[in-house]
């Protein structure tokens, strides 16, 4: 009796024991490291970490750096457009693919493949495609439309939009996949019901189906924001932050501050700013998600 009581004790603790190593790893590799970054951001670290305390000096320095302002502004432009366009395109592709098209598998693979390739090299291909003298502009000019201009990548005002284009190319297939999955989960009879009521297909999608994709939409928004905030090799490969600093993003700023400019403290400060932004997006999402799950 007693033995079995003990064994049921053990059984009660076993799950916790098994999950403990994961938790420990994450506590160290995520939270301890975040704490470390936080500490560095209030020190005068430059080339290597030093552990003095200089208050918020590095944050002041960070915000006095024009490049950082550009980075923050770019992040805002980039993530807004990137999200909006990826969602729009992803949704469009998903809806069209959902119309019982032939070769759906092939098309889906085509839309998804950019996710699989590292931008270290697709960046070069994109550079050429976007280059006014080599890519789209040249092709169109050669076809006879001589005044056609598509030279955003050379224009500091417009270059960030080329990053958006490449980012959309890379990630909209992913949005498509999630939306497609969501569409497949929708009860067919809802569409039939609306048909009987006389709604046209576009109307059905606009008024009924797209609103029903809310959970998928939420996932897409969160995952794409995550991609947007972490975008790094995308920018490095495509524009390397240029022309000038026109396509700097917080992640590239952080990297170059830490490893190119020997301003580890500033880099840490920018990391802290980024983490705070991420937390501002993710924590409410997590909260609502987990609460919902508990109820359901």
């Amino acid at each position, binding site marked *: 009796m007693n033995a079995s009581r003990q064994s049921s004790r053990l059984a009660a603790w076993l799950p916790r024991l098994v999950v403990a190593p994961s938790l420990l790893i994450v506590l160290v590799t995520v939270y301890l490291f975040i704490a470390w970054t936080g500490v560095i951001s209030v020190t005068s670290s430059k080339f290597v970490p030093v552990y003095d305390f200089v208050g918020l000096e590095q944050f002041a320095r960070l915000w006095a750096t024009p490049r950082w302002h550009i980075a923050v502004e770019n992040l805002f432009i980039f993530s807004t457009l990137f999200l909006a366009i990826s969602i729009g395109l992803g949704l469009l592709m998903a809806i069209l693919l959902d119309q019982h098209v032939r070769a759906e598998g092939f098309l889906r693979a085509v839309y998804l493949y950019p996710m699989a390739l590292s931008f270290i090299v697709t960046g070069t291909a994109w550079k050429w495609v976007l280059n006014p003298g080599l890519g789209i502009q040249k092709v169109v000019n050669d076809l006879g439309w001589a005044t056609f201009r598509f030279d955003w990548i050379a224009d500091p005002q417009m270059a960030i939009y080329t990053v958006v284009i490449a980012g959309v190319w890379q990630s909209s297939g992913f949005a498509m996949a999630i939306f497609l999955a969501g569409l497949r989960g929708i009860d067919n009879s809802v569409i039939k019901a609306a048909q009987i009521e006389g709604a046209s297909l576009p109307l059905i999608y606009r008024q009924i189906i797209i609103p029903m994709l809310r959970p998928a939409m939420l996932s897409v928004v969160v995952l794409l924001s995550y991609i947007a905030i972490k975008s790094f090799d995308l920018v490095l490969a495509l524009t390397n932050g240029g*022309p000038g600093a026109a396509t700097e993003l917080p992640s590239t700023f952080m990297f170059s501050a830490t490893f190119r400019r020997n301003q580890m403290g500033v880099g840490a400060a920018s990391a802290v700013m980024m983490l705070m932004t991420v937390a501002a997006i993710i924590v409410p999402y997590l909260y609502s998600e987990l609460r919902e799950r508990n109820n359901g």
Partner: protein
Amino acid sequence: QGAIEVMHHWVAESEIEALSVIRKGVEAKGFQWKDSAVGGMSGANVQQALRARLTAGDPPGAMQFLGWEGVQWAEQNVVRDLNDQAKAGGWRNALPPQLLPFLTAQETFIAAPINMHRQNWVWANKKIFDDAGIPIPKSWPELIQAGRKLKERGVIPLAMGDESWQVEVIFDALLADLNGPEFYRKTAIDLDPKALGSREMVKVFDMLREVRGLVDANFVGRDWAVATGMVINGQAAMQVMGDWAKGEFLAKGLKPNKDFYCFPTPAPVTSFQYLIDSFGMFKVKDPAVQKAQIALAETVMDPAIQKRFNLIKGSIPARTDVPVDEFDDCAKLAFKDRAEAIAKGGMIGAMTHGFASRPEFAAVFGDVAGQFFVGTMSSDEAVKMLVQGIENAR
């Protein structure tokens, strides 16, 4: 005997070939060479990797240093001193004194230099120059003038890409050429706020704006080597680039002064903007590796090795006592200019590659020059931004 891991960022074909000279030298001494190449981002990737390695307490045996890197690591007390080898090899006398700040810390040698690149070269297509009847320009205004003329003839006057470092190469040249090497020293090295904010600085940016006018619209994302290619095949007339560009011409079988011109960026006082690659050794416990480190240092400083290395790499040896006979005309010109510059005070480190101010400041110059070049900023604004940026980085 021992094995030594050498970390570097040489990944291009000619770079690798040159490095193999050293490798073979070390291997000839009976040591093993373990190669750790990390290319990209002008060495930032390898910096990051190295920092992770040192943080982990697992440094490589040797590391290729650029700019202040060696000194900075020496400040962290992780670099082995090479004084014994330097004394035995007479390094101090064999090297230009201007290099010592990058190679020594508190009077001890911490790195062995292999080569010296000159950054402020102009490469020109001889046929275009001859056809247009343009002589080699003697000053920047003349160069601009010549450029305008070429443009009218339908040639792209200046081939370049929009990468910040390519802009900086020109900026560095202008900084020294327009106002003299002394001004360069005051601004790029001493960061004197008065000089930084002076009228002369404004002039530099004004000229940079003029240079911008010589470049075609499709310069985005263009590699320097592609730009060189444009000069070779006659699409463009000139390129301002370090002497690594020479390899492109030679590879095509072109001959200096017969098929192409190489001349320093024009100035009343010709400066010699150098950058050197050196090898530093990290402190390690393993005696076998320590021996290999010595072997590497000695190999690097071996004049014969330096000659062979630089014949391939396109640069000139860091040592001043290597015979010049086998080098090409451009290199010979470099030898000559260097001797002159050492004497006249025209030897200055190239800021672009970290041989002037420390990285946090050099980067500000890069930011401003890069943004100025591709944008519409006025020269006054650029100067203001420069002064503030330097102040903020202090």
